[in-house]
């Protein structure tokens, strides 16, 4: 008997007594494992010089992207940051296309034109990863506004980091979302650090996102972002609230990145004990233990884990087999006519 038969499935499936339905938990577990395996592989490929430029890993933060991803419906919109691999995977975007984008190959999600910081798949309603801190909060509002005007019931979920809470666009976006009563959920992944500077050294309040929400009359919650069950539950209710016309809300999820900010940064500026404490709170083993406690046979989890690694291997192979994008793409798609011509 599988989880799937025990309880009706679907995004927004019930959370009973704070515990999500088993199929949702398994889906979240699978997503997190795939994210972890994918990003570890991406890091290896970076060290091998196959992923070029930069890449920002969400290792350790998977529960946020997975918990929200599982709670969203296919028609909902995601807006993410440069640290957006997990959020892109959470929408069902094929691994191979993401990996190929990181490697600058023709198979890439944007044929290499965007790169790791700009993962976008409109088909999956992954509306973009944005590399200028703060901007995408304002753009997410636009999608939510459009959903509201078009009366579609779509919800927009917008992820950002703790450091983002000190830039002007954050302020403008939250105020507008509140005043326009938009169907949007703002999700701050508070991993305590900006690049190499701790958020507490540059912010006068304890919770850089949630403590600002009252300034916009916005409802907010602070949750354990490493507890996938908690994230899924809060995601479900925030999304449901937005969908049913209850307006915007903000979730501050406390979490931690296992590695450095980007590229090969070892993250050594962080105190050893802080890192150790958070590694001990890794969201993936935590959920694994709980699933076992809940009676899920270990074989089931091992199967997920093995399938994940196989999927990452396959994606890597496909990406590596893809050629560099053709030079002709340089002057393609600046404009909607497909070209780059600015003259006549």
């Amino acid at each position, binding site marked *: 008997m599988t989880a799937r038969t025990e309880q009706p499935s679907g995004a927004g499936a019930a959370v009973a007594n704070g515990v999500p339905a088993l199929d949702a938990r398994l889906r979240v577990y699978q997503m997190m494992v795939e994210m972890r395996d994918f990003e570890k592989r991406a890091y290896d490929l970076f060290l091998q010089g196959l992923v070029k430029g930069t890449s920002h890993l969400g290792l350790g933060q998977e529960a946020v992207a997975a918990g929200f991803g599982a709670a969203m419906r296919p028609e909902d919109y995601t807006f993410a940051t440069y640290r957006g691999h997990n959020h892109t995977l959470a929408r069902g975007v094929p691994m191979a296309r993401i990996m190929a984008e990181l490697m600058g190959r023709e198979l890439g999600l944007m044929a290499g034109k965007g790169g790791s910081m700009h993962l976008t798949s*409109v088909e999956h309603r992954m509306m973009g990863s*944005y590399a200028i801190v703060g901007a995408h909060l304002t*753009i997410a509002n*636009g999608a939510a*506004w459009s959903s509201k005007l078009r009366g579609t019931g779509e919800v927009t979920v917008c992820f950002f980091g703790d450091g983002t809470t000190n830039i002007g*666009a954050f302020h*403008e976006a939250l105020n507008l979302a509140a005043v326009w009563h938009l169907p949007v959920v703002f999700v701050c992944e508070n991993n305590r650090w900006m690049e190499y500077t701790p958020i507490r050294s540059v912010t006068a309040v304890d919770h850089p996102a949630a403590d600002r929400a009252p300034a916009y009359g916005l409802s907010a919650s602070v949750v354990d972002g490493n507890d996938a069950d908690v994230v899924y539950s809060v995601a479900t209710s925030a999304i449901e609230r937005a969908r049913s016309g209850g307006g915007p809300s903000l979730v501050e999820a406390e979490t931690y990145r296992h590695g450095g900010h980007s590229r090969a940064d070892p993250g050594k500026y962080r105190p050893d004990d802080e890192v150790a404490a958070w590694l001990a709170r890794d969201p993936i083993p935590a959920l694994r233990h709980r699933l076992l406690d809940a009676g899920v046979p270990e074989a089931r989890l091992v199967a997920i884990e093995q399938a994940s690694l196989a999927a990452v291997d396959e994606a890597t192979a496909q990406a590596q087999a893809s050629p560099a994008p053709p030079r002709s793409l340089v002057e*393609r798609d*600046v404009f909607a006519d497909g070209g780059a011509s600015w003259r006549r």
Partner: protein
Amino acid sequence: MAEMTYRDAVARAIAQEMRLDPSVVFLGEDVGAAGGVFKATVGLLDSFGPTRVVDTPISEQAILGAAMGAAMTGLRPIAEIMFSDFFAVCWDIVANEIAKTRYMTNGQVRLPLVIRSGNGGGVRFGAQHSQSVENWAMAVPGLKVVAPSTPKDVVGLLAASIRDTDPVLFFEQKSLYSTKGEVPDGEIVDELGRASMLRDGTAATIVALAGMVPRAMAAADQLASEGIDVTVIDLRSLVPLDVTTVATSVAQTGHLVTVEENPRLCGWGAELASIIAEENLFDLDGPIVRVTTPHVPLPAADALEDAAMPDVTKIVDGVRRSLR
């Protein structure tokens, strides 16, 4: 055919498009109930209601972000940035987000949106409310840039901009809002990227934009009275740029004079001059002269502002320098 002001032409174009296409929405500061600080959008709130005509907080980044997100997901927003100087507070959304997203996503995203803005000087508002910044926009790949000089062009080019699938920055010259011109009745839609030849002469080619067009025409009159017949071209849009019309004319006249309101360095005049100097050098019989505001912020006092901006004397002088 009716005579109307440049300012009224704005509202007419928006109304025309909102009537035809329910996905067109309009947002900005004081654009609805007040009808815009330049009274260019009077009546739209009454006609289309507060769902489609939206007064916003003073949050230019949020305004343009909302326009972008809405354009990505099926609407055709028109956003107003009250004075074009304020593009500086939301330049990230314009230059880094709106301009680049289609390209970065390999064409996945369409951004059919228009950003209208009051541009330019001559109204004694001082350096932070008088800039001509169409050159800022032209320098950023991914934006279309339009700047009409007549009420008729306002209607036709604004309608075309709203229908365009790409992001268009639409510059309305503040000094022209109260000017009048004939506008045909009925639906009007023009085409982006076609310059107008307003006057055909063989001595030299003057190219002007927006508020400088009437001054260029006046200079042409003065030159004509001295027996010098010049061509005057109204560029109308900077992206797409109608190089063909300019180059064809220069091939005939041998002389190019550009007239820009913006400060001197790196304006559209420089771009046009260097295109001609690269592609049509041997057509030239004299130096390419750029008449511009000097490279200074615009002063507020009437005497100083008038002294700073290109005027008929400076344009006539510029033509003479090219002919000398």
